[in-house]
Each structure stands twice: as structure tokens, then as C-alpha cells.
């Protein structure tokens, strides 16, 4: 498979990060094309007409959209260490199940909680997020990564949890919802994940993300309120 690989993505997007992390972990050479989401390119609109979103992987003349679909495509289409465990159907199913959970019930809920003004609604969202985070905490079972000794599919899917503290800082939160005391394993995992060689290369620095998001506070708040349950 020596056809060129291009990734259309956006700076500061946890979804784009997932696709990049997969490419880097598999050792796939790719060209990153920065999309201006306020002025989407013809390339993006032509190859992802359904969602018109990043990330979008272009491999030769093939277009793959949706971050986790891209992660699986990269895993199956290229040589390199497996992201989903090989030969263990139950472990693969478990990784997929918890990946969806991490996306829908953790990252998403945390994001909404962050931008909901103080009150009953916010308390409820935070409580829900923490309940769900506790399940992710338990999944680590004292291991370095969700994937075991190496970063895997579920670590990539859960990477949004590594971004949340940055957004919390931006939203002016006093303390992170993912606190050391309540979630020691997740905090340790976050450190391991963000300092991993391959991952580091496609994770902007904290300072860069804060600067980037600072101009978007209103947009983020609006996005959170428009997200359905």
C-alpha cells in the first residue's frame, strides 16, 4: 500500500487527534492538511458530503470519514502494531463497547457539564460524568494503558479525556472534574498517554490549545447547549 495518505483535520480537534494518533502509532507517513472549518475546502466537501466534517482520511482515491472508522481502517489497512487486539473476539468487542462509552458518556457529558452554568443541571451532568468516569477508571485495572502495555484503540478513543483539563482551564474551572483523588488511575493514564512518543507528536501543547480555544469560548458554550441528550 504505497499510495499517498492525506489527513484533513483541524487544529485543536480531539476527533482529528484520534485519526492522527492511529497513523503515528502504525508508523504511516501522511500529509496533514489543515482545514479552515469556517470555510471548508472543496476537497473536504467532495469526499465527505454526508457529514462535511474532519477528520477525513484520503488514501489514494479512497476517502474514510468518522474518527473511529478511520482508526479501524488504519489498523486493518497498514502494517504495524495492532490497535485492536488480534485474535481475541471478546477483547475486541470490549474495546469497541468502551470506546463508544468513552465518547458518548464521558467526553460528551463532560463537555456539556463544562459549559452549563452553575445550578441543578450542571450538578446532574457532573454527577453523571463522574459515575461514568469511575467505570473508565475501573477499566484500567492498574495497567499503563487501556490497551495494556501499549496504546490501543480504547486509549485513542478515550483521548478526549486528556483534552478536558485544558477546556476546564479555559472555562475557568477551579478544579478538574478528573481529580487525582477520585481518579488516580485515569490521571496516571493521562500522563502516560500524553507523553507517549507517537501521541506527543500529534498533540498540540497545552499552551497552544488554550490560546487556540480562548477565542472560541462563546462558540463552545453554544455548541454544548445545542447538543441533545
Amino acid at each position, binding site marked *: 500500500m504505497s499510495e499517498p495518505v492525506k489527513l484533513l483535520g483541524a487544529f485543536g480537534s480531539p476527533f482529528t487527534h484520534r485519526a492522527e494518533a492511529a497513523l503515528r502509532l502504525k508508523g504511516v507517513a501522511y500529509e496533514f492538511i489543515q482545514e479552515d472549518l469556517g470555510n471548508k475546502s472543496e476537497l473536504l466537501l467532495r469526499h465527505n458530503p454526508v457529514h462535511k466534517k474532519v477528520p477525513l482520511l484520503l*488514501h489514494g482515491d479512497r476517502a474514510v470519514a*468518522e474518527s473511529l*472508522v478511520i482508526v479501524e*481502517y488504519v489498523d486493518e489497512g497498514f502494517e504495524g502494531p495492532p490497535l485492536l487486539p488480534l485474535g481475541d*473476539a*471478546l477483547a475486541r*468487542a470490549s474495546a469497541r*463497547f468502551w470506546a463508544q462509552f468513552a465518547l458518548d458518556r464521558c467526553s460528551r457529558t463532560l463537555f456539556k457539564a463544562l459549559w452549563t452554568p452553575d445550578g441543578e443541571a450542571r450538578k446532574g451532568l457532573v454527577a453523571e460524568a463522574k459515575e461514568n468516569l469511575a*467505570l473508565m477508571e475501573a477499566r484500567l485495572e492498574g495497567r499503563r494503558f487501556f490497551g495494556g502495555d501499549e496504546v490501543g484503540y480504547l486509549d485513542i478513543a478515550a483521548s478526549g479525556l486528556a483534552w478536558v483539563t485544558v477546556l476546564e482551564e479555559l472555562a475557568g474551572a477551579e478544579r478538574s472534574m478528573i481529580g487525582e483523588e477520585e481518579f488516580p488511575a485515569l490521571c496516571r493514564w493521562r500522563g502516560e498517554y500524553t507523553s507517549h512518543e507517537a501521541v506527543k507528536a500529534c498533540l498540540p501543547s497545552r499552551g497552544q490549545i488554550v490560546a487556540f480555544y480562548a477565542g472560541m469560548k462563546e462558540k463552545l458554550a453554544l455548541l454544548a447547549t445545542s447538543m441533545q441528550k
Partner: protein
Amino acid sequence: MVAGEEKGLVLLDFWVSPFAQRCRIALAEKGLACESVEQELLGDKGELLLRSNPVHKKVPVLLHAGRAVCESLVILEYIEDAFPEAMPRLLPADPYARAHARFWADYVDKTVYGIGTRLWKLKGEGRAAARAEMLETLRTLEAELGGKAFFAGEAFGFVDVALIPLTSWFYSYEEHGGFSVQEEFPRLAEWARRCGERESVAKILTKPEDVLDFIGLLKKCYGIVE
């Protein structure tokens, strides 16, 4: 024919659940016998369900030698992985074809049922918005299907399994939305008929009128008066 009983396959099921039906169709297509255990969902949920799916407390759950797999699309992938010799394969071997299948199954999952629920639950503006989204969704699926026999081409597969049980709900969506799938999306209608010729689909899908009755029951539960 591979005997599922020897493999200890049990599906925690609910008669009208299109998600459980995805799993039953996949298993039937592959000749994997599986015991279906009807769950009580409108009242108190059973202990086995709560133990097997503590996170979502939903059906379907596939129990394989006592180990639980939850979420219908995860179950479909599990069946492919755990029984690689069971034909036909619902996901092709080619990574790009697999990505295409996963993308479209994910699209179906993010749209049809959720929009459909708003269509029958809401009134006025809410219903109108849901109607517009439903038509947009069906339009997208119609275009993607194009002139192909099935979503992947010649062979019945992953996306077809993901979508076909939801076609039992089309009649209810038509009634609430005031549109006709046959008229506006003839290729989709033809595809549904084609799938319906398969023994698995014919046996497993709920009759559209029964789905409408079920929605009527749900409305009573939610205190919705039409």
C-alpha cells in the same frame, strides 16, 4: 450448519427491538443457533439483563458461554470475529469496504431510530423538524444505495443488517410524517422488499402494523395524546 447451542449462544431480546433483530438476523444468516430470551423492558428489568448490561441496561445482549457482549453493532462485529468460519461473512475482507460498511452502519445508528422517535413523540414544530430530518436521512440512504442490490453491492451485508429491522418502523414514520417511502424513495423500498425475500428477514422482522400498535402503547405510557 454450525450448532449455536454447543457454543452457548443466548440473546437477551425484546420482541419489537430492531437492534435485537439485527443480531438475530446475523446469527440466522450464518446458521448459528441462538436461544432468544424475551426481556421485560416496560416494567422491572430482569436480574440477568441488569447483570449482563449494567452500563446501559438495554437489549440486545449476546451471551456467549456466559460472557456478555452489548450494543448491537458491537455484537455484529463480535459474531464476525468469534465465528470466522460461519458463512456468509457480513463484513468483506477489504479494509476500505469494511470502513464503508462501518461508516454507513454508524450513520444509520445516529439517525433513523432517534429521529423516528421524535417524529412520533413530538408535535408541532418538533415533529416538523423531525420529519425534515427523516426525509433528509432517507434521501441520503437512497442516494448511497443507488442502483446496487445491497449497500455493499452484490451481497447482503453489514449495512443491510443494520438498517433492515428499522424498515418495520417506516410505516409508523410515514403515518406520523405524512410521506410515502415507496413514492419518494423507490430504491430503498425495492431494497427492503429484496431483503424481505430472505428467510431470516422474513421470519424475524416485526409486522409494520404491530410496530404502530406498540408505538400506541408507548404513547399511553408517556401520556401522549395524539
